[in-house]
């Protein structure tokens, strides 16, 4: 039965239900046990599943990911939490060098799901706000997932855990207790690699993922008043990503905006924009606009951070510009 629950609770529910279903699934990381994680995502899991399946670790991200890889090879389904996605910088080697290539090189699957709270707007600065997804989409062998709704947070997490590959699951910490939507109380999966059209519109396809989805909704409403129909695609998975859904929509609108929170330069938006041009050149009615954060480290001060992040105005301006073609 669906009920409205928070994004954060959807993640917890996915973890606990999947742990009940499959005793190979376990969670670990810094402060995830009694404390329930710094964002409370693993709260109460210790009580239900005990200290073997819900475990604090030393402050050692590389060792955490290393454990995950080994345990996965052994046959478990580890779901490590990295306290903030930013700290993945200290564990790039095990993810990229070992996990991503292990099945290709050695032939044994490495089913791990790395939960990493990602993204800004919380005024917590350069070391707690980064969006690192683009790096990992450039690493063959990894999957990259970014849920934008509570429904997806649950379904994509279950799918990630059941997937036989290393998945980086970038949960959007800004949405934890900001977004609530209908979530079935039973287990279900949202398949990896499938985007979803969140809103239909005839004029422009806006492709996004994660928390900027809500900015896109806002923009769509405003643009509607101006007679511009924004179709919104939520990618949900960045690697592999769903070309078909993008191209089908683009065939209709012939215009596209790609919106993400990571800096624009070198961001994942470039991949999408380039792909559209490669695949649908004949349908191009206007430039493809990428909107991302500015080219600076992430400032803390709200005035600066708001300016750093992509804004409603950025989207409206881009849409209006595109309609002039």
């Amino acid at each position, binding site marked *: 039965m669906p009920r409205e629950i928070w994004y954060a609770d959807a993640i917890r529910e996915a973890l606990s239900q999947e742990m009940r279903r499959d005793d190979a699934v376990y969670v670990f990381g*810094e*402060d995830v046990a*009694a*404390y329930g994680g*710094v964002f409370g995502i693993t709260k109460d899991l210790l009580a239900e599943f005990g200290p073997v399946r819900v475990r*604090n670790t*030393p*402050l*050692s991200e*590389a*060792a955490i990911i290393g454990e995950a890889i080994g345990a996965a090879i052994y046959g478990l389904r580890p779901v490590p939490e990295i306290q*903030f996605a*930013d*700290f993945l*910088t*200290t564990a790039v080697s095990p993810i990229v060098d070992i996990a991503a290539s292990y099945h290709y090189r050695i032939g044994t699957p490495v089913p791990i799901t790395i939960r990493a709270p990602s993204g800004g707007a919380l*005024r*917590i*600065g*350069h*070391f*707690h706000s980064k969006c690192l997804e683009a790096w990992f989409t450039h690493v063959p062998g990894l999957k990259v997932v970014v849920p934008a709704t509570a429904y997806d947070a649950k379904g994509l997490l279950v799918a990630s855990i059941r997937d036989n590959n290393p998945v980086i699951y970038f949960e959007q910490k800004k949405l934890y207790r900001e977004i609530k939507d209908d979530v079935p109380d039973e287990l279900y999966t949202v398949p990896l690699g499938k985007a979803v059209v969140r809103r239909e519109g005839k004029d422009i396809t806006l492709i996004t993922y994660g928390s900027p989805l809500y900015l896109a909704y806002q923009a769509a409403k405003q643009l509607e008043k101006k007679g511009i129909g924004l179709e919104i695609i939520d990618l949900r998975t960045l690697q592999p990503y769903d070309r078909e859904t993008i191209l089908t929509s683009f065939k209709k609108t012939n215009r596209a905006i790609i919106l993400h929170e990571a800096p624009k330069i070198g961001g994942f938006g470039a991949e999408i924009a380039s792909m559209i041009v490669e695949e649908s050149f004949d349908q191009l009615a206007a430039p493809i606009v990428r909107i991302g954060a*500015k*080219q*600076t*480290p992430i*400032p*803390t*001060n*709200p*005035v*600066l951070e708001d*300016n*750093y992040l992509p804004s409603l105005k950025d989207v409206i301006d881009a849409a209006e510009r595109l309609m002039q073609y």
Partner: protein
Amino acid sequence: MSLTKTELLELYKYLRLTRTLEDWIYTICVHQDPKQPLIIGKGYLSTGQEAVSVGAAYTLEKGDWLAQSHRDFGALLVRGMTVDELLAQYFSKAASPTKGRDANVHLGNTSKHVLGFISHMGAMMPVANGIAWGAKCRKNPTVVLAFFGDGASSQGVVHEAMNYAAVFKLSVVFICNNNRWAISTPVKEQFTIENIADRAAGYGMPGAVCDGNNVVEVFETVKKAVDRARKGEGPSLVECKTMRMTGHGTHDMAKYVPEDELEHWKKRDPIQNMENYLKEKKFADDAYFKKVVADMKKEVEEATEKAKQMPGPKVENESRDVYAP
């Protein structure tokens, strides 16, 4: 090496100033209107462990450097950073050390030889080595203090840095403030050994343990290591046993800390300790302490007014300084 009366009174003053400033930060954090915050983000305090920071930094000479951790406002004050500066940082002002770009304890000031702290635990340890190497190349008898926590000790980079410093006989004194907790993780889940200082032997450097709540003992222990480093005899590791008497940040009620552990440490408050010592030595009496407390309060109040008046950062400046000219 014995401290004079004047010095002891100065140490006391720094302890008090740190406590007063941080109590004030705590008060603001807890009472401010979250919609219109004066402080951006949370406070990270050294309450109850100020003696580590103050005692260690007090060993330094003018040309020396420090790489502080996130609970080292005491050291920053000893080093000559002002209460104004530190509050301006917490208030995220344009004229603060990071110009509103970064928040709270994430600051540095190279003109005062304060290298800075970043969130990634232990990350600055090898950077401290670099300062020491630079000094060595330039034949300056500079010493660098590098602070890290019991949690940070589990990061690979701390190991790399200590071994590296030993190989090149760098004038770095590594200071572990072992305050028994890393967020909710107690030391017994962080490592199985009694003393982090025992790792020193594994790098071929001296290791020492001291009472981190006794500022004189901290000073004397660190001073020995600093003198050794200054003579070119290489790095040391000093572990200061103390206790984190607050939550991890001002938002954390730290319910996971056992009452009796807190009780035990409350009786060993470093400021109380120092007052007892000064009284014993007949260097000061209660009236004196009262006066210092009042002076410090006044200093903090004045600085608060000053910092409050400072303008916030301007969007126009935001993207400046991403690259150095």
